[in-house]
């Protein structure tokens, strides 16, 4: 046991350094925690703000985008803006709102070319393969075509007409003698350019472009579509119509 009174004189600098480490280290830990929380929460971007073509998924985008604005500068239609504090997306990142200025889908994709970090994926060379979002009829109760009228504007302006938006005919049960031409969006072809949302004639657009992660979801692998499996197999997968047991309480034949 050492005598507490005969200890080696302590270096005051050591005490100061330890004090610094605990105080500043604690402060740094608090700052890191707050910044981390802010960083994670900034992934939640308003649904009506869309990323430029070729943008990585939101999480990867925020790791990659340095907020330089080069894509905004090279956008010839002033579609892209940098987010200010009040705009919603992480501050300084590029976005556009389809209802204000939609993407004109330039063949040369200058915004992607301008990106120095790959936050906009340089592998995107065909703008038709862009996935800025996916159009959705968000208001079936106000869409004019769904009321049995012939508006068709979203269908007509779509750069991928008859592929991304088709008009599907059905019987108009209200009038009993007319058709309903329903605009149906096919996510596979929709680039999310927002022309449809921009041109919807209603005060509040009935068709809106939503982020891919909200609107274009993948079907679960375990759901098999019988008719597709049948086509793939080149014939029925079961030999004969199934014989199901009769479950009526009285039993016997129907």
């Amino acid at each position, binding site marked *: 046991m050492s005598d507490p009174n005969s200890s080696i004189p302590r270096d005051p600098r050591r005490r100061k350094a330890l004090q610094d480490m605990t105080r500043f280290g604690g402060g740094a830990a608090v700052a890191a925690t707050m910044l981390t929380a802010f960083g994670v929460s900034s992934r939640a971007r308003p649904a009506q703000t869309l990323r430029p073509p070729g943008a990585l998924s939101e999480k990867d985008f*925020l790791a990659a985008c340095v907020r330089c604005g080069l894509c905004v500068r090279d956008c010839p239609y002033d579609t892209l803006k940098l987010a200010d504090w009040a705009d919603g997306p*992480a501050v*300084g990142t590029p976005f556009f709102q389809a209802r204000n200025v939609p993407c004109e889908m330039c063949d040369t994709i200058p915004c992607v070319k*301008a990106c120095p970090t790959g936050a906009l994926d340089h592998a995107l060379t065909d703008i038709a393969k862009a996935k800025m979002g996916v159009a959705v009829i968000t208001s079936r109760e106000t869409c004019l075509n769904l009321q049995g009228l012939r508006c068709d504007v979203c269908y007509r302006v779509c750069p991928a007409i008859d592929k991304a938006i088709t008009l599907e005919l059905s019987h108009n049960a209200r009038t009993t003698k007319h058709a309903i031409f329903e605009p149906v969006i096919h996510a596979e072809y929709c680039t999310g350019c927002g022309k449809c949302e921009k041109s919807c004639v209603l005060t509040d657009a009935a068709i809106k472009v939503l982020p891919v992660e909200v609107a274009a979801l993948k079907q679960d692998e375990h759901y098999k579509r019988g008719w597709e499996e049948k086509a793939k197999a080149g014939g029925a997968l079961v030999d004969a119509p199934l014989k199901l047991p009769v479950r009526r309480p009285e039993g016997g034949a129907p």
Partner: protein
Amino acid sequence: MTANVRPYVEARAAKGLWAASRFLVLRRTSQLFFLALFLSGPLLGIWIAKGTLASSMTLGTLPLTDPFVFLQSLAARHWPEGLSATGAAIVLACYLLVGGRTYCSWVCPVNPVTDLAAWLRRRLGITVTAKVRPNLRLYFVGAVLAASVLSGSIAWELINPVTALHRALVFGLWFGAGGTLAIFVFDLLVAKHGWCGHLCPVGAFYGQIGKVALLRVTADNRAACNDCMDCFAVCPESHVISPALRGERTGAPPVITAGDCTVCGACIDVCSKQVFHLGLRGRNAVRPESSMTAPVPAARVVTSQPAALERDLP
């Protein structure tokens, strides 16, 4: 304290107005120059530098990327494409040559604001200041990198008031300038040189480059120092001066080696005895005593030291 309210008076009388404000004028010119490179496009349609200080493209050929932003991107586990890596390497190489925190004093748009706050502080005689040790910001750099790893995003750019001010000026995003206003109030009323000197992780990062950078300020004529303390009054990082200026007794070289030095040249401007000059790391030759002014007796340097320390050193 009162002697330091107007630190430039003596220098102007001794050297003339230009020699006593040369570096200030050059720095403001440099700051305006770098801003003008970005503004000529949106204002006049003449595109020289596109982008912001975070990353830019000059004349369609020269990519530049802030290495601190680049580092955070790596920490967030994004492997950036070639262009930004090249840009970061160019910027890093430049600051290894010209002094690290020269970014802070010659390029950063927040600098004129914090300089104004420091000037007002002197003029208004505001002496109350929160005592924060300069190495706090290094912990802050660590916090920023940790947050980048944990959140998987470029964490500091979520709030960085430096790039926010630059975006405000260049892209017209004026909400972003709010942070700069807060910095001004903080520097004026809460802590002397509070933001740049104690908190800003961007400056702390460039300070690490400054530890090995080539261009430095040197007190090579330190024999002529008359202990007026004016350099301590104007230096934004006054702790960097003493080791070089008072190094005669300890045998320390006259070059200011500390990374915290922003090579702003305020000490060169303010010194009526022309003690300081721009120099290179490793060039440690001291000027002969007779070079500028009559030498101050060494005894005076020693006796005035404790009082000086009490008064101005952090």
